[in-house]
């Protein structure tokens, strides 16, 4: 696998001969004193009330709460009662550039990420056209260097134009900056093609992220197959559509020594496949989405495609509980939103006709905090850790609050209550699975690679 990078290297710096994995627009480096906030960085063993001084975009000092004074030109945030976490990293977002900028683009997408406390994201390659050439990677990185408020990494497709038949030029794509490979949105139906890609990966590096479903079993399914689909008369996608493909692909990866990331895990049988593969020593990582952790197919009864139609579909309560357990026991490596913006006209149609996907960047922390941390199902430490570890499968270390690090952090009010969508979204699209829900906790400020990438408007006014 590619070498581990901490944050963004300086311009021109290289990563084992490869470009820096993430690209952000240049901006002023933050000079900020956050006073008295509860810091929580479980991996670094940092916990408790501290003052945190950020100078020139880096964390220069951590000190006992109330002990640091700001020099001239340093903004002070009185943050007693608020929390500071290392910023989050999402390895699975759809920013729709190029081709579908009416849904989202690199600017609105990264703004949406920043509003959710993210300081790094990886964009999927199923754009229009798909990202299958080095020139496209270069163009995307160039665009991001002008508009991305949060550092973005780009994936390339495994097969040319996601047709599933020919491999992309993986080596050149890596040289151009592809952090990994994925045909996300579609499975790689051919075992032979996946095998070749994994063989070739031994030379190029770059984890292959897999959207696992067997098209033969999914058929025209639009929701989980089960009691609810039976009653609603909607075609079902059986859980085995996902798990059988994971079984197949884990076996191929094990045989070839390849590295794979299983995307958006949804079913209990899939978790079993991952456990077995990990026990067998396969280099397999996996992610789960906030919506699969918080909702079940019972939610589909309202036939609201904007909130409740996505792929993989919401499954049953026992699947959901198994996903939570797998997050706790470490079988699941990270939380990824699969942020999938769609325009209103693509969602405001009968359920079966609607596009699949929901947005999730702006609500990832708050939704899971509300649904799982507040009721005591998982700890805050675990949530912070799993939202932060999304870059690891792609060689990007989690952000940290350790002195001397680049400032990648978020300031969060755990007591805040807000109605999702009430004041609009940073995303260009409104198909949030949390739309209209009241959530507890809210991201107030996000620093991404030393820049203030987001401030909640109401909060900033309060400080001024």
């Amino acid at each position, binding site marked *: 696998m590619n070498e581990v990078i901490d944050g963004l290297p300086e311009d021109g710096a290289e990563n084992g001969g490869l470009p820096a994995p993430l690209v952000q627009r240049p901006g002023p480096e933050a000079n900020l004193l956050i006073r008295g906030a509860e810091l929580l960085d479980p991996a670094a063993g940092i916990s408790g009330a501290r003052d945190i001084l950020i100078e020139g975009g880096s964390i220069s000092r951590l000190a006992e709460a109330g002990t640091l004074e700001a020099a001239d030109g340093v903004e002070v945030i009185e943050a007693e009662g608020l929390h500071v976490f290392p910023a989050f990293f999402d390895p699975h977002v759809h920013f729709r550039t190029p081709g579908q900028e009416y849904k989202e683009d690199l600017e609105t997408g990264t703004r949406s990420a920043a509003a959710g406390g993210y300081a790094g994201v990886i964009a999927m390659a199923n754009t229009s056209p798909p990202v299958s050439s080095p020139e496209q990677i270069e163009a995307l990185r160039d665009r991001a260097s002008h508009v991305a408020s949060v550092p973005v990494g780009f994936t390339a497709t495994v097969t040319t134009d996601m047709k599933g038949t020919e491999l992309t030029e993986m080596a050149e794509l890596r040289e151009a900056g592809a952090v990994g490979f994925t045909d996300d949105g579609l499975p790689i139906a051919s075992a032979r093609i996946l095998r070749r890609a994994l063989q070739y990966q031994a030379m190029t590096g770059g984890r292959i992220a897999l959207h696992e479903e067997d098209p033969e079993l999914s058929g025209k399914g639009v929701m989980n197959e089960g009691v609810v689909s039976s*009653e609603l*008369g909607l075609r079902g996608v059986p859980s085995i559509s996902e798990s059988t493909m994971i079984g197949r692909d884990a076996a191929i990866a094990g045989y070839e020594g390849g590295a794979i990331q299983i995307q958006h895990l949804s079913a209990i049988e899939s978790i079993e496949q991952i456990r077995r593969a990990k026990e067998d020593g396969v280099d397999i990582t996996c992610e789960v989405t906030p919506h699969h952790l918080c909702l079940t197919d019972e939610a589909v009864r309202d036939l609201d495609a904007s909130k409740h139609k996505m792929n993989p579909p919401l499954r049953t309560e026992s699947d959901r509980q198994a996903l939570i357990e797998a997050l706790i026991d470490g079988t699941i490596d990270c939380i990824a939103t699969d942020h999938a913006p769609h325009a209103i*006209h693509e969602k405001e*149609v009968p359920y079966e006709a609607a596009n699949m996907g929901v947005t999730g960047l702006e609500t990832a922390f708050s939704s899971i905090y509300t649904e799982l941390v507040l009721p005591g199902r998982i700890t805050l430490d675990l949530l912070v850790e799993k939202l932060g570890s999304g870059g690891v499968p792609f060689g990007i270390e989690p952000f940290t609050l350790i002195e001397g690090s680049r400032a990648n952090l978020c300031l969060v009010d755990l007591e805040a209550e807000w109605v999702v969508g009430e004041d609009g979204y940073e995303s260009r699209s409104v198909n949030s699975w949390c739309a209209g829900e009241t959530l507890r906790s809210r991201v107030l400020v996000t620093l991404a690679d030393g820049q203030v990438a987001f401030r909640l408007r109401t909060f900033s006014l309060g400080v001024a």
Partner: protein
Amino acid sequence: MKHLLSIEDLDQEAVESLLDRAESFAEVSKRDIKKVPALRGRTVVTLFYEASTRTSSSFELAAKRLSADVVSVKASGSSVEKGESLKDTVETLSAYDPASIIIRHPQAGAAQMLSGWVDAAIVNAGDGMHQHPSQALLDLFALRQRIGSIEGRKIWIVGDVLHSRVARSNIQAFSMMGAEVTIAGPPTLIPRGIEASGCEVRYSLDGIEEADVVYLLRMQRERMEESFVPSIREYARLFQVNSRRLNPRQLVMHPGPVNRGVEIGGDVIDSDRCLIADQVASGLAVRMAILFELLAHGGETHASAEGPVPIGEPA
């Protein structure tokens, strides 16, 4: 009752009162003058995105018998063919200020979406494989006319339950009215988890002699191409209901159109025990009752003491 989207919108009492209402409309239909002024001056739109004979014609006639102005829109030959979205079509039709829109659509939830977009009372005339509530109500009516209450009766629904909105509405409706529902068919055509709706599941016709009513579903030939059944011939051998399978007291129903010799033997269709003609006749009275309850009765479900008054008679 503001809309009729699903059988779940109703309770037993609401169904009873609707069937009572239908009974008085059935009376009206026997008179020389079959029209009542209940919806005079009001507009009813029928919007059909799928082919239909029985449902569209009986809703249209029901609305006319209630003296409504009726606009019938079919997807073919309309702006739908030019790619107009459901929402835009519905908003266009809303400009006529319809009191009700009756919609059939190939996708589940279409009727429900309309109810969120416009003020008109929405009647679901079939949405995908989801619901067909007026069919279930007319089936209940036909049964009530023939055997009275179905409380405690055993009803078998046989055939392609997987693809059937009629089955979904009828399982709910029959159960709500106290019948014991069994569904039977090949496992490939029985949706996984359907027993949670309160019915028993069988993979053969063994035991069908216990049924008071056998409700057959249309078996589409395309199902064979999709590998749901190996052949229509084998399906017919295993699941066709014909007079050899039945005893004389058992009733047979079918929502139509039938495939003679596939799911149903021709000998059954032509016998007294077959309620198919009763079902069709019930459709008109029941759909008049639905529109009356939704539009003339202010959305309440209590039966009016006076009942409908035919045109030409003193009100």
